[in-house]
């Protein structure tokens, strides 16, 4: 509220200036007031963001152990209770960021000032940049905690797969033909309902796999991805390396604009050349690693669910030709 009244004062001073009364003093006073106001706003904004950061840390610190616990204890096959809590926790993070963003827009982006001087506008730009930078620290923190919260969503696909295999071993000789009672062997892990012929009476029995076995194809891909994640990370690292090197070279290029010293120019150009070479090397390494990852992932997937090998291979071809990460 105090803010609105100050805005009114500024407006009044401005009118005063326009009407030609007292030449220098009011303008100076006005500019001084506005700069003071800016300084105060900045200080308040920094305190405000700091408080939000404290809240964020406190809330995340309390939530993460709860999420880990719930991820462990949720007995639902798809862990829907855990997922709802995670979604709610992330929603609170969003509410903190949105609150900061709304205040940033209202108090910083639309900070009212009337002084029409170069000094004032550069002061405003500096004020705005400082506040924006402070805000982006909060955003970074939100991002970091968001990742940590996402990281609580772990699923042990090895264990899920092991359960399917163990179950298969336990049931494969357990069934008898519904028609004649002779034993029927389930010859492999089926993930869809299928017809199995009785070796004695030739009746077609319908074998329906358990709910967990029906998820084999789905779990298989996640497990294959989990088993080959390290190669994907290498590929991603090469991609990041390339971007970092590009950025470094770009910075160097910018620093050359005002450089007059020939020796330094020469040295920096050489440095840029080296960076470019390294960048190209990383750039060529990345797709090779990605292809290596894809191949390894699909090999694993085929091992887990060999019945769909042909289909996986066609999917592989699609990804390998159209998707260079």
């Amino acid at each position, binding site marked *: 509220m105090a803010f609105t009244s100050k805005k009114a004062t500024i407006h009044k001073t401005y009118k005063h200036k326009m009407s030609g009364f007292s030449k220098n003093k009011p303008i100076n006073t006005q500019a001084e007031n506005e700069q003071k106001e800016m300084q105060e706003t900045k200080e308040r904004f920094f305190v405000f963001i700091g408080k939000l950061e404290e*809240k964020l840390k406190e809330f995340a610190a309390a939530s993460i152990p709860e999420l880990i616990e719930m991820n462990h204890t949720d007995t639902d096959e798809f862990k829907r209770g855990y997922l709802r809590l995670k979604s709610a926790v992330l929603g609170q993070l969003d509410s903190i960021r949105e609150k900061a963003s709304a205040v940033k827009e209202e108090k910083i982006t639309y900070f009212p000032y009337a002084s029409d001087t170069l000094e004032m506008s550069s002061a405003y730009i500096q004020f705005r940049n400082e506040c924006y930078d402070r805000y982006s620290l909060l955003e970074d923190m939100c991002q970091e905690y968001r990742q940590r919260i996402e990281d609580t969503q772990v699923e042990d696909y090895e264990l899920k797969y092991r359960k399917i295999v163990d179950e298969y071993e336990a049931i494969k000789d357990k069934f008898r033909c519904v028609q004649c009672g002779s034993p029927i062997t389930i010859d492999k892990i089926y993930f869809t*309902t299928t*017809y199995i012929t009785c070796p004695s009476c030739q009746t077609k029995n319908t074998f329906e796999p358990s709910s967990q076995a029906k998820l084999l194809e789905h779990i298989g891909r996640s497990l294959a991805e989990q088993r080959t994640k390290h190669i994907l990370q290498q590929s991603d690292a090469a991609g990041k390396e390339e971007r970092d090197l590009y950025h470094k070279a770009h910075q160097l290029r910018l620093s050359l604009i005002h450089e007059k010293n020939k020796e330094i120019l020469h040295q920096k150009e050489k440095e840029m050349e080296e960076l470019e070479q390294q960048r190209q090397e990383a750039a060529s390494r990345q797709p090779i690693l990605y292809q290596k990852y894809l191949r390894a992932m699909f090999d694993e997937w085929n091992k887990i669910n060999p019945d769909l090998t042909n*289909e996986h291979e066609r999917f592989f071809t699609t990804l390998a030709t159209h998707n260079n990460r």
Partner: protein
Amino acid sequence: MSNPLLEPIHGVSLQDYAAISAKLVSGVAQADILNALGIEPAVYEEASALWVTRMQEDQTWEVTTLYGQYFGNADQHPKLSGLNVAISEEGQANLDKLNTDRYFYEELCGARQAAYQYGLDGAQWIQENFGINLGDFQAVAMKWMEVQNADWDSVPHFASYQQQKQAAYAAKFAAEQGGNVADDVVF
């Protein structure tokens, strides 16, 4: 049929598969759906697994796009159109409105988003509060998506409307849970 990826699998066409999926999400019993089509679970489960792989290998998005259209038009499927779950009178009125009133549709999309942000199962929340099941909701969504694809100019207008509604529902859900974590932090 020029695209071999669109050939039926065990006689289950893409239209059948999409309509089955839509009916299942709506809550129709699988046995009733398969009976109407004259197939057994063994046939359906293979076809279903293979339709997924067809979409994976589809480089042109044709299969996925058509799937979406068929899903949205499940009620026109020759053998499955009559299979529906019970819907309340209010639910039917809401569903009709969802079909004809874009603003109402955007409002419920915003509401559903907000519900998820506040830890609610959005699909269940819509079902409980508006009597519309997820299958029907998604079918309407497919239709509005087609409308949107034909008129890109109106996208920002409706997106901003949806955002407004999302914020309003978020405020309501926040109040219900006793506020947001940083409510006491003021500028």
